[in-house]
């Protein structure tokens, strides 16, 4: 069997879903232009330091649209906020809000702007 760096993903997702006090869907309010620019920069540069500047993967998994197509933006936002315990993926909830995580998740689903 292929060993995986993220072995506990389904369990982590279940726990993440339980832990998020505010439902992510309730956080849906489009960030303003300056925030969108800041978040896109964060995605490219800081997420990119593990997932690659073009999100094609590195230490972390690839995050291109085809890699995240099986998960909803809400689920991706929960992963971003809570991280994946036991792996290098950290929880970002101390640094970004649920609405911001959702914006990043939706950007992942659509692909980075060219």
């Amino acid at each position, binding site marked *: 069997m292929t060993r995986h760096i993220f072995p506990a993903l389904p369990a982590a997702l279940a726990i993440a879903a339980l832990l998020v006090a505010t439902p992510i869907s309730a956080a849906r309010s489009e960030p303003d232009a300056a925030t969108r620019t800041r978040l896109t920069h964060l995605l490219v540069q800081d997420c990119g330091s593990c997932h690659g*500047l073009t999100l094609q993967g*590195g230490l972390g998994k690839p995050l291109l649209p085809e890699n995240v197509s099986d998960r909803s933006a809400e689920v991706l936002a929960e992963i971003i906020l809570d991280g994946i315990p036991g792996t290098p993926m950290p929880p970002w909830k101390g640094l970004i809000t649920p609405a911001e995580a959702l914006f990043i998740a939706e950007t992942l689903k659509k692909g980075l702007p060219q």
Partner: protein
Amino acid sequence: MTARPTSRRGLFRAAGLGAVAGLVPAAARAAEPALRGTGDLGLVVERATGSLLLVETTGRSVLARIEGLGDMSHASLVFDRTERFAFVFGRDGGLTKVDLLTASIVKRVVQGGNAIGGAISDDGRLVAVSNYTPGGVRVFDAETLEMVADVPALDRRGAPSKTVGLVDLPFRTFAWSLLDGDEIWIGDFADPRAPKLTKHPDIGRLPYDGVATSDGRWYVAGLFGEDALTRLDLWTAGAKPEKVLTGYGKGEQPLPVYKMPHMEGWGAAGDLLLIPAVGRHEVLAVDRDTFREVGRIPVHGQPVFCVARPDGRQVWVNYAHPKNDTVEVIDVPSLKVVHRFVPGPAVLHLEFTPRGHEVWISVRDRDRIDVHETRTFAKIAEIAAKSPSGIFFTPRAHRLGV
């Protein structure tokens, strides 16, 4: 040597040393190129644009921009022993040989899908690249960039692994770690077509980087999945990896890690090593022989690079997001932070001039490199660069284990 040079490159060859084309005004290029050495040259990775800046540290200036290097996120490079050529390892698997004297790309191959760094052998003949996809180490002829060895990283269960912490060791040997496989491999490439591999399993969970001490005695892997490091004695035949600094967090809950620390450039200072603690706002001071902790220094954030000034008297530290706008200087004799300053958002790397009188600091989100004098800490120059990350000066050519 060309008897009758017919091209500019030929001229450089005929001149023996050559010259940096970018240095010479266009009108003067037809004339004899100025001779120059390469010991004060360096390359700066411009990660967003896939380019390199060729710089010199005597006049603190940019000589040329070299473009066309692909995805340069997390790119690193090594210099050959002549200090004329650099081998650049791109994230997209590109391996590019760059000539500093002509400020140009000599050759470029895409050798893998997703690379994470490399090393050059002590004799300058072999360049090894560490890959995430497909996981393993590939070894190339430094002259032609032809692949001479391909060593997939299949762990003892036969599962593929990403490889990290690739370093050179004496006598055409490289060492690396298997991130997913929890192993350290030593590869002797004296005969590159028939490499001799020594594999050490179960070294600890998730080695994220590795480094060799400058004497080549110890290979040390940092562990992400455990509160410890693993070291391997390379001078003792049959030695097994041993865990050191076990429980350095002493049961505290580690903080989320927004950027993995790097072990390259580890602060080797006299009898001490200064090491970034994973998930803590601390730098660990460790005895170089026993790897026992002799102190820990509270710092501004989670350290990424702890780089010793070449004389070992100071160690300069940068930090992970969201505290990555700050640099601190640790005074090694007192193990205290003696200076803190804020260059700006996203300080990514530091490189000292060969004897340490100055340090260059990349400030990514200001599109700038700052140069500081290291005695007074004063900023003495600013150099424009596009989204700069790694800074590499040619004297690295003669350092082991980088």
